[in-house]
């Protein structure tokens, strides 16, 4: 089973919702669509499902052109952020409903409902009504309805967004296990980088209607192809610094400089954007060639085991995530250090010029 988007685009009232997109999703894979609100995640899913017809391009299912084939005639299941169950039916009947619509024999329905309920840990709740369930169980019921059909393509549009934090954490662990057993193509839309990382599989990063990168999730995270992908796939956001390299120095701000060490020494002279993740900023010098920056501390936030420092570096706003609990004076200068192995270098057009050395080793 393969789902292939071949130059698919969508324009609504003159506004481009999806730029021409090529994407191939294989059987038995989890594919995350990661991007902020309005980046095109839902539009792309609607095209995949057949709820919308593309303006250009083709959608191929196992090599067959299904562009324009209506959703009813495709082998698709979809789960939305607002979990939809039939409130007057029992959990059993909710899960059975798609199979009854398909006119399956009773015994087959019964077996499929029990199997799916077992997988979703709903067996003890089969006799209850959805409103007698917790939020997490209700969403599992909606998921079970999507899975029971054995659809080849399962589309999940921010399915956990309305759930409590802890429930979300539990379902994020369960969903990859469930999908592994089903063998379908899963597509999962989310705004949260952490969710993408926990789900694993492949990730497509989206920005303003464009897929900026598609590949195995940890690869996209560690080896983003451009600054936009790095920004989309970083929470807290990636920090940036405009630099110009001259000889063996990186110049920035108004006249500050730091030695260009490590891989950065190999760059040609010119202007670049350096990017680094908050967890790689340090408040002690841990490596001999670490670069030093003097910043102003604007806000600190403690998580109990870590400290977020919000910094002003000559007008650029940075976030640092420092291990341990640190009581630092707000408004004072703070020296921070950065191992050059953790720095991504982007060109003036945003394209990656040099990946962070640590990511190549990972």
């Amino acid at each position, binding site marked *: 089973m393969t789902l292939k988007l071949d130059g698919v685009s969508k324009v609504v009232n003159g506004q481009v919702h999806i730029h021409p997109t090529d994407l191939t999703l294989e059987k038995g894979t989890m594919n995350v669509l990661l991007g902020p609100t309005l980046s095109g995640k839902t539009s792309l899913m609607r095209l995949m499902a057949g709820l919308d017809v593309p303006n250009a391009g083709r959608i191929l299912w196992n090599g067959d052109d299904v562009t324009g084939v209506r959703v009813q005639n495709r082998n698709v299941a979809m789960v939305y952020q607002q979990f939809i169950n039939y409130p007057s039916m029992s959990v059993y009947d909710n899960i059975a409903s798609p199979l009854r619509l398909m006119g399956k024999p009773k015994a087959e329905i019964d077996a499929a409902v029990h199997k799916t309920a077992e997988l979703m840990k709903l067996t003890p709740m089969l006799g209850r009504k959805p409103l007698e369930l917790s939020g997490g169980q209700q969403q599992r019921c909606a998921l079970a309805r999507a899975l029971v059909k054995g659809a080849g393509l399962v589309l999940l549009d921010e399915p956990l967004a309305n759930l409590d934090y802890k429930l979300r954490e539990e379902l994020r662990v369960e969903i990859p296990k469930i999908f592994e057993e089903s063998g379908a193509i899963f597509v999962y839309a989310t705004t949260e980088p952490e969710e993408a990382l926990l789900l694993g599989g492949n990730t497509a990063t989206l920005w303003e209607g464009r897929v900026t990168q598609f590949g195995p999730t940890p690869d996209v995270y560690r080896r983003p192809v451009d600054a936009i992908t790095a920004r989309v796939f970083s929470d807290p956001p990636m920090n940036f610094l405009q630099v110009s390299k001259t000889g063996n120095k990186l110049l920035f701000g108004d006249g500050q400089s730091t030695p260009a060490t490590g891989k950065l020494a190999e760059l040609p002279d010119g202007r670049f954007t350096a990017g680094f*993740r908050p967890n790689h900023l340090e408040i002690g010098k841990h490596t001999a060639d670490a670069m030093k920056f003097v910043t102003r501390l604007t806000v600190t936030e403690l998580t109990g085991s870590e400290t977020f420092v919000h910094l002003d570096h000559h007008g650029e706003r940075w976030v640092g995530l420092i291990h341990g609990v640190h009581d630092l004076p707000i408004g004072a200068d703070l020296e921070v250090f950065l191992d050059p192995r953790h720095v991504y270098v982007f060109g003036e057009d945003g394209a990656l010029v040099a990946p962070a050395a640590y990511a190549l080793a990972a």
Partner: protein
Amino acid sequence: MAKITLDNLAHSYLPNPAGEADYALKELNHDWDDGAAYALLGSSGCGKSTLLNIISGLLHPSQGRVLFDGRDVTRAPTAERNIAQVFQFPVVYDTMTVHDNLAFPLRNRGRDEAYVAERVQEVARMIGMEADLHRKARGLTADAKQKISLGRGMVRKDVNALLFDEPLTVIDPHMKWELRTQLKSLHHEFGHTMIYVTHDQTEALTFADKVVVMYDGRVVQIGTPEELFERPEHTFVGYFIGSPGMNVIPAKVEGRHAYINGSSVELSGGYGALAGKVEIGVRPEFARLSDSEGLPVKVRRVEDVGRHKIVRAECFGSEINIIAGEGDRIGADMTRVVFDPAHVNVYANDWRVAPNGAGNGSAGEAA
């Protein structure tokens, strides 16, 4: 700004509550210090919104009093309490401009237009909407509308308290960062008493000086983020705070050691005889895989979540989580787990027991 006192407060939605189970909010005594930032943290249905609604006057408690700076306001309507509130979903006037929405609470109080204009500018800068001041609210995204709600909550400087009920639920992760940071620096600058209700631990911990953790209608711990992390007073706090939460493993405790299936784990202090269900609690951050020492474990899966790895493992039939560094090697020979003795807590019937000589902690205090 005011100190808010909850005196013998409890609430049941039933007309004639019989036992404790009938109370959505179980009896509670607490002072919210003037000028402090609090988070009220718990899962859906734990009673946190009930408590917030009692403080704001949307709900009258079935028992006890609410005092603002010593003055009884238990039955006073919301309007008399002089508080600002921001809800989960945006409340904006669609037909008004962004400017007029932000100005609304000030004009209502009859502030002069020069002050209104200056204050609206300041708040618009804080929420990053200076460029949109003359647009109508209609047609803005949910994000933008919620920013207006936040701005309107913050526009008055003379309120007794600012109450937030899950204000960032509809906001994108990147914007969440910005707004949370803005709230935090606003608090730093003006020192409003703030109470922030959320189910999201990151929001609670990063926002608040003190976090009030609620579970099943009861306050189970009030503490700084560090206290909640290092010494959860109840296994629920250990589970709820931290991602993944604390590992809780049934054990026998004798003196300075805990025994799990006969294997010993070192503790930071000595313990007397414990009654009831005895468990040890260790956060995934304080557990590490080893090839030579510690308890035997089977690694089930390793999740690479970017800045660290989450190792899902099994230890004598209990599922446990271990956090490993971004660059740590996890080889097939890593078949043991070591706990940092300074960070192993002991629990009897879900409440933390302090080691001998370490004082009593606050176990059971809230119960």
